[in-house]
């Protein structure tokens, strides 16, 4: 029996073993490699996708369980990197190696859909399941707050100009002569 669901807004028919994890169906069967394999046990969040708007770990989600549901992957978040989370990620130059970032972005987008202005504590709570071995956590926090402002500019005063140089985190130069 083929399984049917909606993938990034388009109908999808599946003819694979029903217990095949959604992750491997996306990556190997469809060739949609934006969703990453990190642990296979829902421990790292690299494989995060949206199922009916919820952030879900696709590595432990049997493809049969998404029958009739709406699945969105990183490839379907926007056509052109225009989702506020993607725009904020670019402005703050979040990724380092980038491998975990599809999952981070999908978790962040799901968070903002429910909570337009999360506090740092709420961000930490929602993003706890996403490991970044490069340690981009600081910029992830900043970028989620920035994305909230981009998404709901009327709610809080947006920073002057999108992509402004002032948004890029950078190290400071110590004053000449330094020290004491």
């Amino acid at each position, binding site marked *: 029996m083929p399984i049917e669901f909606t993938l990034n807004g388009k109908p999808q028919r599946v003819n694979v*073993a029903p217990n*095949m994890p959604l992750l*491997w169906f996306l*990556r*190997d*069967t469809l060739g949609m*490699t*934006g*969703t*990453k*394999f*990190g*642990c*296979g*046990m829902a*421990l*790292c969040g690299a494989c995060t996708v949206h199922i009916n708007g919820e952030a879900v770990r696709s590595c432990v989600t049997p493809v049969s369980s998404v029958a009739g549901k709406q699945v969105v*992957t*990183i*490839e379907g978040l926007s056509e052109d*990197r225009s989702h506020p989370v*993607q725009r904020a*990620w*670019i402005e703050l*130059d*979040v*990724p*380092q*190696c*980038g*491998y975990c*970032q*599809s999952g981070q*972005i999908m978790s962040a987008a799901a968070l903002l859909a429910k909570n337009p202005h999360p506090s740092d504590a709420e*961000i*930490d*709570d929602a*993003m*706890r399941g*996403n*490991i*970044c*071995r*490069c*340690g*981009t*956590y*600081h910029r*992830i*926090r900043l970028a989620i707050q920035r994305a909230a402002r981009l998404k709901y500019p009327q709610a809080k005063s947006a920073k002057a100009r999108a992509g402004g140089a002032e948004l*890029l*985190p*950078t*190290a*400071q*130069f*110590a004053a000449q002569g*330094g*020290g*004491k």
Partner: protein
Amino acid sequence: MNGCESQHINRRSFLKRGTLGATGLLIGFYLPELRQAHAADSVRSNSAASGGRVTLNAWIHVSADDTVTIFIDKSEMGQSVLTGLAMIAADELECDWQKVRTEFAPADKVYFNPQFGAQGTGASTATRTSWEPLRKAGAAARMMLLRAAAQKWGVEPSECRAEKGAILHAPTGRRTSYGSVSQAAGKIPVPQEIPLKDPRDFRIIGKPTRRLDTPDKVNGRAEFGIDVRRENMLYAVVARCPVFGGKVASFDASKAKAIPGVKHVAQISSGVAVVADNSWTAMEGRRALDVKWDEGPNAAATSETIRKLFAERASRPGHIARKDGDPEAQIEHAARKIEAVYEVPFLAHATMEPQNCTADVTAQRCDVWAPTQNQTNAQKTAADITGLDPSKVFVHTTFLGGGFGRRFESDYVADAVEVSKAAGKPVKVTWSREDDIQHDFYRTASYAKFTAGLDADGWPTVWMNRIACPSIMGRFGPLKDNFDARSVEICDAVPYAIPNILVDYQLAEAGIPVGFWRSVGASQNGFFLESFIDELAAEGNKDPYELRRHLLRNAPRHLRVLETAAEKAGWGTPPPAGRFRGLAVVSSYFGYVAHVIEISVDRSKRSLNVHRVVCALDCGRVVNPSSIDAQVKSSVVYGLTAALHGEITIDRGRVQQSNFHDYQMLRIADMPVVDVYIIPSELAPTGTGEFAVPPVAPALCNAIFAATRRRIRRLPVRPEDLA
């Protein structure tokens, strides 16, 4: 082990010499030939973008539409080398930064890292060793474009100048873009004398600059090794002996082969490969495999037997790495004698992208798509397995989902090449997270014994330090006098003005594979040295900052970062209530870093919070301050993860940890505030990917001492340490 002898010996002998002064000479030699070498590569790389692209040298290619393509001969594993190297070349080229594209270079001798004698990325060498060659490559290309324009106009080159991707002739007001003279520039001889810009005129170098690879890393487009897909490709996983050094005794593949989609089961060097039409089916096939292992000589090893071995070795004198004064005699005259033993465990790299490789082996050629830090070794590994000449092995470097030294190895390349050869098709081998954690080349466990003498005023007069641990370099060839300098690095370079110093090394092979792990020997030795000096401060009743300042009076670059971090962190002023500070300063990879870490400890819950890290660093000239901010924060996370959670333990010869539930990573909620301060410098740049790791653990543990008066001498920090 996997055939990387030559480059590792070169790496080692190079490290002894310090710096290579020959890069300038080298570029003069190889720029001209390179253009031919590269033209050939472009043809075979089959790059869609190569149409109309003129190769001016191995790195710089200019297209008629003004696009400048810069070849990146180092691996991008998060450290922003792709952007940093492009910035260096583009600044001298005077091109329009908006028109810059990058491509990973193929495996070729012209891209050899002078430090390794091979094409590879590691040891924080990329920026340092590319600085001069890439500036010259950019400048040479600019000169050729300028001369081509001058020829076209029939004017003197000296009357022209290059600016933002165009040549201008001021006397006549003429202007032509790089693209429109690129064909003619390709025919201009490569200049032999290549003057470089005055650094005051840098327009790109030194400015906070966004990464060129970010746009493709926010929509899933960036291609990592694990994402490679080839026509008719099969997918494989390998069952490996859980015990290091063990091998396959026999196996029964009948149940695995009965699973629909499993195509082949084949024994290869590393174990038994199951090949299927997708990765998940291959994993299911591996679960159904019945393999009998010959567990070999390490089957009885445990963490405790290894620890005892280290302690036993450390009880005997070792090969002397450094001796100043007469420590053995002077220790007898010391007013006080302080002794301590420090220990660290094995650590896995745990790159977010598990190891993987795709290979396509045919009778005529072998293509390898790999997230590798070591292109030359990947090529040699594939050539050895296939019997093909290395020139018939084409290494395609992808993005790396983390490297940290793990991908300097080529074991995953061997897997893919062997399986593709056996299956007769392109094959992608993917490691599970369990494979990755249980079959790593680990940061070595190590054991450090200290004896110090203090004078009547509490100042150190004698410093004796013995290290016992396995050797990384011993993997690649016999060690002279059983000595591996990398096992004692940092510890042998005690920067403190102590008149009597002895540092020696006892080789202690444990049967566990060890390798390069972000900051290598410095990762554990920075902890040893900077913890014990802190102990001496406490024993001598001195402030740990003031003691260091006094003893670093002849080490100006150490002193400068130490003083800057202390000042910015408010050392000497009381921290907020309930908070405690610790500091450490370490020089590694030609750079200098001091951290002050501020923590609070909840002794009833046996837990701690890291609130703030203040970092001051000296890395010579800065290429991209935004990348430095990112690399320091990355190093803080990497160092804290190791200090607070990192421990690979051994039982019955096998690793007991398997995935992120029992090999834990720092999570976002644990991320402290990190303030990064750069000491301005006009010296040539050093790499910044590793040097901020070593001072993290000692600064943390010194803060724990400030909070609890309990000295952490064994990592990771355990709950009972905080009681």
